[in-house]
């Protein structure tokens, strides 16, 4: 079961909510609805689901409804229509008391401008979520301190937010959200207010944290590079509608429409595409089964100057060159023992192209792509360059 | 001045009595004197300065026990009409008070209201709107044919005396609503205009008013207030003292010391022995 499921969620701001909703469901556009009813469509029929432990990124330009969507999830904004399920419980139909419990226990939010209470110390801020649950002072203090410690901010616990730098403040925001130990983190442009350097650090920290704690994170940004960097899935919004949902690669390589295409045009593909996206199926020799004769014949047939050698379980042993193989045939050798070369460069299936540049640049052979030590593909130079060419369609 | 033990033996027995007054010179003088007399009798006297109307309201509702500042029948006519039946009128404590139109003596050609033609910009400078003198002046303007086109300019007592002072210094013509006793007659040479039609009424008296029930609750104090009566000269001597900078309380005390026989008349029948 997905952690979060959203069904046909809509939000209309303004007086003629009913009428506007009807028009929206008829497929009318946001601007037309605004003109006809004066109501603003914030979110229009959004449906998606998020699995436990993934980072789900919502992207879009200003005013596209990202904030509205995420605030609907914990009902800081009341939905006009649709359902929100958290672990199967329908949040949109909950009573006040239950909703408060969900907010206290299940999800916490991190805000763009940090949302720290200026009159409280860092520690008091971090305690806030626990304090309002009525937790005893000693216990909540301990937990807050632990959360701050994890964020590397324990030394600052008695400072006030204004005494900290932006990056530190955002780490406090994160620590505060985590102190509650929620299942789900909602992050609304949590890093947008930060410096480029600090921002990158925070992204790294988030990824680290994600790995360790396995939270479900819903993350808003309008920076595509950020989205691609941290998101398992990305939803791209425009005018309240979700244009496309998919992995970064899917969105980059199969944009659902012109808008999405234009949106992703400027992105650095070498930081999104991985070895898997560009690799070719390798022509291989099976150790123990194929011998030098077979090898030489196949190399000649396929016009290759070298071939990779694997075993039955596709474990990679190395490669042989055409000249070596010819010599082995001449010497009547029956296996590759004498000619097998093992200095073959390998990359993982999910290595970014950006990281393959170096490997492939130095290599005189193709690069092998492995997964759990097993060969899954090869990459030659022209494949890398082809993938980076703008109008290429990479098969996935 | 005296301690509690000795107060027990006095007439007043330290009982609290509250006299209210309006901050006119006459009333400051009289209230301080009678207050001092009561205090000497052993009362715990409290003098409360109030706005004119509030003073009446206070006695009417019993908030204050009494006051010696009711100018009748003219000046406080309206208030007396409103509150007169809610309090006890102990009669005049001063006779020979007067209200009327007043001009500086250097306006030699004007001696009667009937002499007024177009002096002082045809304006009578008055005090607070709603005050008795002002109402009387307005009546006067209506009743004297020669005052057609005149108007009564209301302001306040302070503003009126200031204007008078300024005009006097520059020997300009001015007609004000006047009442006496008042220190202006000491400071400047002024005269009342004759009032052949009697629109300002005859002489004014300043009456003593006390709250209902005072007679039963504090008969001695009631009696003193009832017997309180003095002359314009008495009052003016204190007023002059105060005007010259003496503290009102000290001025009252000094006057009491200098006039034991008058005080004895007031306290006759209530003194301890």
């Amino acid at each position: 079961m997905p952690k979060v499921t959203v069904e046909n969620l809509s939000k209309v701001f303004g007086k003629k909510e009913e009428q506007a909703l009807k028009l929206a469901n008829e497929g009318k556009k946001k601007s037309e609805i605004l003109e006809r009813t004066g109501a603003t469509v914030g979110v229009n029929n959004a449906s998606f689901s998020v699995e436990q432990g993934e980072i789900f990124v919502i992207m879009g330009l200003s005013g596209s409804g990202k904030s509205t969507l995420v605030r609907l999830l914990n009902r800081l904004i009341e939905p006009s229509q649709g359902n929100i399920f958290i672990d199967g419980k329908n949040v949109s139909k909950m009573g006040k008391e239950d909703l408060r419990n969900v907010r206290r226990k299940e999800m916490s939010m991190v805000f763009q401008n940090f949302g720290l209470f200026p009159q409280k110390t860092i520690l008091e801020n971090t305690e806030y979520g626990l304090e309002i649950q009525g937790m005893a002072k000693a216990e909540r203090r301990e937990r807050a301190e632990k959360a701050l410690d994890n964020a590397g901010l324990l030394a600052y616990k008695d400072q006030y937010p204004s005494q900290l730098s932006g990056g530190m403040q955002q780490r406090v925001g994160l620590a505060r959200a985590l102190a509650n130990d929620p299942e789900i983190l909602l992050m609304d442009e949590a890093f947008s207010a930060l410096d480029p350097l600090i921002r990158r650090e925070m992204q790294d920290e988030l990824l680290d944290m994600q790995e360790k704690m396995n939270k479900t994170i819903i993350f808003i940004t309008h920076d595509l590079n950020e989205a691609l960097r941290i998101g398992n899935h990305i939803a791209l919004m425009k005018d309240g509608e979700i244009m496309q949902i998919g992995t970064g690669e899917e969105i980059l390589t199969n944009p659902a429409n012109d808008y999405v295409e234009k949106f992703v045009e400027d992105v650095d593909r070498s930081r999104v595409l991985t070895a898997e996206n560009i690799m070719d199926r390798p022509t291989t020799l099976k150790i123990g089964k194929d011998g030098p004769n077979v090898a030489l014949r196949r190399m000649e047939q396929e016009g290759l100057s070298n071939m990779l050698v694997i075993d039955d379980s596709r474990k990679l042993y190395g490669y042989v060159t055409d000249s070596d193989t010819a010599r082995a045939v001449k010497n009547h050798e029956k296996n590759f023992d004498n000619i097998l070369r093992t200095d073959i460069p390998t990359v993982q299936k999910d290595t970014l192209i950006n990281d393959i540049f170096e490997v492939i640049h130095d290599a005189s052979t193709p690069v092998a792509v492995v997964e759990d030590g097993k060969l899954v593909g090869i990459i030659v130079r022209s494949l890398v360059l082809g993938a980076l060419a703008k109008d290429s369609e990479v098969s996935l | 001045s005296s301690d509690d033990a000795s107060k027990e033996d006095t007439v007043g027995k330290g009982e609290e009595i509250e006299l209210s007054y309006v901050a006119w010179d006459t009333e400051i003088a009289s209230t301080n004197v009678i207050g001092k007399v009561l205090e000497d009798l052993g009362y715990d006297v409290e003098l409360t300065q109030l706005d004119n109307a509030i003073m009446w309201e206070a006695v009417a509702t019993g908030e204050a026990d009494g006051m010696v500042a009711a100018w009748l029948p003219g000046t406080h006519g309206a208030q007396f009409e409103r509150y007169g039946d809610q309090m006890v009128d102990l009669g005049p404590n001063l006779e020979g008070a007067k209200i009327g139109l007043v001009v500086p003596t250097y306006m030699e050609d004007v001696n009667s209201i009937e002499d007024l033609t177009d002096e002082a910009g045809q304006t009578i400078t008055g005090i607070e709107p709603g005050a008795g003198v002002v109402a009387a002046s307005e009546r006067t303007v209506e009743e004297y044919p020669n005052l057609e086109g005149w108007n009564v300019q209301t302001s306040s007592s302070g503003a009126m005396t200031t204007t008078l002072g300024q005009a006097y210094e520059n020997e300009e013509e001015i007609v004000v609503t006047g009442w006496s006793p008042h220190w202006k007659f000491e400071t400047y040479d002024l005269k009342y205009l004759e009032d052949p039609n009697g629109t300002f009424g005859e002489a004014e008296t300043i009456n003593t008013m006390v709250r209902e029930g005072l007679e039963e609750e504090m008969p001695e104090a009631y009696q003193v207030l009832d017997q309180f009566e003095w002359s314009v000269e008495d009052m003016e001597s204190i007023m002059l003292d105060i005007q010259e900078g003496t503290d009102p309380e000290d001025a009252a005390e000094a006057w009491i010391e200098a006039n034991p026989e008058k005080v004895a008349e007031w306290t006759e029948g209530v003194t301890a022995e």
Partner: protein
Amino acid sequence: MDFLDNIPKLPVAENIENFMDWITDVLEPIFDFVQSFSEIVMEGLTDLLLLVPPLLFIVLIAAICFFASGKKFGLAAFSIVGLFYVQNQGLWDDLMSTITLVIVSSLVSVIIGVPLGILMAKSKWANTIVTPILDFMQTMPAFVYLIPAVAFFGIGMVPGVFASVIFALPPTVRFTNLGIRQVSEELVEAADSFGSTGSQKLFKVELPLAKSTIMAGINQTVMLALSMVVIASMIGAPGLGSQVLSSLQRAQVGTGFVSGLALVILAIIIDRLTQKFTK
């Protein structure tokens, strides 16, 4: 504290008194001129207002309210009912006198206050000097300067305006100062970066941008001028204030309330209208 009591009383009162006498003497010609001139203007204004038939006046005000509030009926309806009430209670003439008093006081305050506020915004020095004077003007009880006002300007509307201006001036000065200081730094920089001279910057950028803050100050000034109406009547300014005062003298709560209510109505109409024009 014997020690303190032993210090002789400083002759503050006497010195003030002498100073006032001196200044009254010295400036007499000026005061006289100002008084006669202003008296004529203000009486003329009141007469002019009285020339307008009440019904027409009510309709005009209602129309202004209607359009100023973006064609909403609320304020217009209120002003019709309110003004009809004033007329019905026989307070129309007093209302007109009060309007004159308030208009003139506000106008004088604005004419003095706005330039003073600009000066304060531009000069730290002026700021340091004027601020305590403003504090003094607002906290010294009006009752204290009623007498000097009479000494300077006699009895009537003119000293009423004088007293009102003293009390009502500070907000215009303060908000003008604030408004100009609040103009976004980027816009001031933009004006500078194109090579504006000081006065170009002031008139083309700063004042237009500070307008709504300045107007808020003027609104406060008008409100304070209104609140001085009763006190002004103590030095002879005619109008609703003197009705209130005379009701107090006669202890007529009802009549006082009737006139007071007329003042409240006037205040609310003026307040809402100036607020509407501020936006």
